C-alpha cells in the first residue's frame, strides 16, 4: 500500500513537472550499466517488499532490542530497519536514524510521519560525526552494511 502510494506520489510530481527524481545507475554482475532510467526511490520501493520476504527487519533486530531501549540506526537508508526499531522500543523512546544521503533521510521522515512514529530523530550526517548523540546514551546500535 505504502509502495503504491509512494509511486503514485512520485508519478504526480513528474506529471506536474515540479521536480524530476534523481536517476540511479544500476550495474549488473559484470559491471555493465543495465539502466539509467529507474529513479532511485522507485527502484528501492520495488526492492523493499522483496527484501521483506527474505529478511524481515524484526527478525534481525528483534532478538537484540527490548522495549524502552534507546537505539541508533547508522546508515538507515529509507528506514527499512528504523521503523521496526521504533515499533520495538515503544513510542516514548528515542530512535536515532543517521544517513549520509539527504534523500534517504527525507524519505524516512515521510514514512515515519505517515506511520505515526514520532520518536524517530533522523539526521543527515556521516556516522563519523554523531555529535548530536550524547556520550553513553544508546543501548543498541545497528550498523548494518555501514562499513
Amino acid at each position, binding site marked *: 500500500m505504502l509502495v503504491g502510494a509512494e509511486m503514485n506520489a512520485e508519478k504526480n510530481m513528474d506529471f506536474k513537472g515540479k521536480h524530476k527524481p534523481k536517476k540511479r545507475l544500476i550495474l549488473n554482475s559484470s559491471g555493465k550499466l543495465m539502466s539509467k532510467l529507474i529513479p532511485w526511490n522507485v527502484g528501492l520501493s520495488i526492492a523493499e517488499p522483496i527484501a521483506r520476504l527474505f529478511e524481515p527487519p524484526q527478525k534481525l533486530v528483534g532478538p537484540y532490542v527490548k522495549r524502552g531501549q534507546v537505539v541508533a540506526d547508522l546508515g538507515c537508508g529509507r528506514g527499512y530497519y528504523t521503523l521496526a526499531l521504533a515499533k520495538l522500543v515503544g513510542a516514548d523512546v528515542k530512535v536515532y536514524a543517521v544517513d549520509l544521503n539527504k534523500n534517504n533521510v527525507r524519505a524516512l521522515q515521510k514514512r515515519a510521519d505517515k506511520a505515526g512514529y514520532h520518536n524517530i530523530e533522523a539526521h543527515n550526517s*556521516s556516522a*563519523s560525526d554523531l555529535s548530536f548523540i*550524547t*556520550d553513553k*546514551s544508546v*543501548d543498541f*546500535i545497528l*550498523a*548494518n*552494511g555501514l562499513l
Partner: protein
Amino acid sequence: MATDRQLSVKEMKRILKPDGQIYMSLGAGPPFGYVDQSEWENILEEFTIRRGGSYQQKWALLSLKQV
C-alpha cells in the same frame, strides 16, 4: 583502517552505554566494498565479540571491552 571508518567506530564506542550492544555488518568485501579481512579484524579488536565475527559471515554482535 580508513580515517572515516575509524572515526565511525570511535563515535559508536562513545555513544554506546557500557552494557550496550552493536550489530555490525559489512555490505560486501573488496572490490565491491571497502573493508578487507585485516581491517575487519582490526575493527573487531576494539570490541568484545558476542556473536559472529568471521570475515566470511561479515557480521558481528559486539559490546564494549570492559576495562
